[in-house]
Each structure stands twice: as C-alpha cells, then as structure tokens.
C-alpha cells in the first residue's frame, strides 16, 4: 500500500513538472511548431523594395515533394529558409539541402540564402514571426534576433 503511494507521488510530481514547464508565454503556433505543420507566412525584415520575394521563395520551396513546412524570413543580407523534411525522406536530408541551395542560387543569383532543416531554427523563425505580429518587438530587435537565428546554423556539437 505504502509503495503504491510512493509511485503515485512520483508520477504526480513528474506530471506537475511537465505541465509547469509548458506554461510559457508562447502562442499556439509556436507551441506546436515542432510537431504540427505550421506554414508561417513569409516575413520581410529588409528595406529592399521587392515585397514579394519571400513569398516567391516560400512557394518555390513548398513545391518540393520531400518538404512539408517552410518558413522564410528575408533579412538585410541573407534570406533564411527553414523547412521540415517528411519523415521517410529524412535519411536524404543532406542531399535535399544541397539540391535546394543549388536551386535557390540558380533562381536568385543576387541573394544570399541560409538554408536549414533544423527544428530549432524553424521554431525560432515561427517565434520571431509571432513576436513581430503581436508587436512585442521592434524591427531592430527583430533583426538582432534574426542574426542570432542565422548564427545557430553554424553551431556544431
């Protein structure tokens, strides 16, 4: 009897811990961004005139059959393309990234792209989009955060 109490207590405290951790200030989209398809609308942080470029890039990337979720953010110098690869194609992630980079380079030779299939980068892109939409951060702050996201791409081990 005593043992059962102990187990119940352990399970209960674990549940409490997990539930407590989920109580973050995230919106609906980003809280499920790792699991569900989010399809965030493309965003522009640069001062360039071409309004439609991020949307065009997103459409182009979303057409690839191995990819199912795309986030595009246009910064001042670089365009970030974060995407999720369908589960069965995840073994070929490197070749997909290579192909995509090449394709984007051919299509838009004047732009510099940062292409990544990392969940963290995708999640941060969605969070940045939400923070901008909610008006929590200014454009300058957003640019800073964008640069930090791009830096994540270079992080290894």
């Amino acid at each position, binding site marked *: 009897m005593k043992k059962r109490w102990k187990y119940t207590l352990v399970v209960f405290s674990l549940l409490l811990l997990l539930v407590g951790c989920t109580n973050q200030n995230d919106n609906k989209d980003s809280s499920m961004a*790792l699991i569900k398809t989010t399809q965030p609308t493309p965003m522009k942080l640069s001062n360039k005139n071409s309004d439609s470029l991020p949307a065009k890039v997103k459409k182009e990337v979303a057409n690839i059959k191995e990819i199912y979720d795309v986030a595009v953010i246009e910064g001042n110098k670089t365009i970030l393309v974060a995407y999720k690869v369908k589960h069965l194609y995840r073994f070929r992630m490197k070749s997909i990234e290579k192909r995509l980079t090449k394709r984007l380079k051919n299509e838009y030779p004047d732009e510099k792209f940062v292409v990544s299939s*990392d*969940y*963290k980068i995708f999640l941060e892109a969605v969070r940045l989009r939400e923070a901008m939409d909610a008006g929590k951060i200014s454009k300058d702050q957003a640019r800073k955060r964008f640069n930090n996201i791009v830096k*994540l791409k270079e992080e*290894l*081990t």
Partner: protein
Amino acid sequence: MANKNKTKTPEQIQYDQLQKKHELKRPILKNCIRAFFIGGLICLVGQAVTYFYIYFFNFTEQTAGNPTVATMVFIAMILTGFGVYDRIGQFAGAGSAVPVTGFGNAVISSAIEHRTEGYVLGVGGNMFKLAGSVILFGVFSAFIVALVKTILTMWGGF
C-alpha cells in the same frame, strides 16, 4: 554434433537426452518483441528529452544530442540505484541494455556490487570494468575513423 557425440560416453549421451527433455525452450520471439518495444520506449523518452532541450533551451538539433545523452544516462543511473532499472532489464533484456541507458546501468550496478570492498579498490577499481571497455572502444574507433577521414580529405579533397 555427431562428432561430439562420438567422444561422449553413453552416460553422457543419456544425460544430454534427459536434459533436452526437461530444458525450458527459450522464448526468442517473445524476448525480441519485448526488447523492441521497451527499447523503442526508451528511445521515445530520449526524443522527448531532445525536444525539451530544443524547445526550452538554446540547443539546435545538432547540439541537443549531447545533453540528451547525459540526461538519459543520469536517469538510468538513478533508476539503477533505486532498483527499478534491474526490473526493466529483466523484462526487456537487450532492449534496455543496448540504448545508452544500459551504459549508466553498467557503471552503477558494478559500483553497487563492489561497495563492500571499499571505495577505492572496490567501487573505483570495478566501476568501469564493463563500461570502461565501451568507452575505450568508442574513443579508439572514433580516433581511427577521424584519422581515415583526415587522410581521405587530404588526398581526395572531399
């Protein structure tokens, strides 16, 4: 088998037959299924821990692996200390030994086993008896692979 039987005495052959009659058959399929599911469950927990690090901390998919492994080994060590992991091991067999949690179990269980022989010669001397070879194998094979890759990169320019 026939060759072996030739060297055996009639009593030994008789005993072998008797043993065969009473020996319990190993439930290989059942063991495999158990190992598959419990091993998968451990991996599921590992995946959840990875997502936890990606979601709440500043880890990418590439970097989240290190803290995940550390956490899983730590959890396995604590469960071994409480005697829970032994039961999981009895039930799942290889399913609980093959994932990285089995490593934590190997370290702590041998530490507990040799506790009576003292902290230095007992615990310290025997803690890595099983796990030490795993570490050595990992480090050495990583060294060899790195060496081969370096040579190939220098020559082939991959």
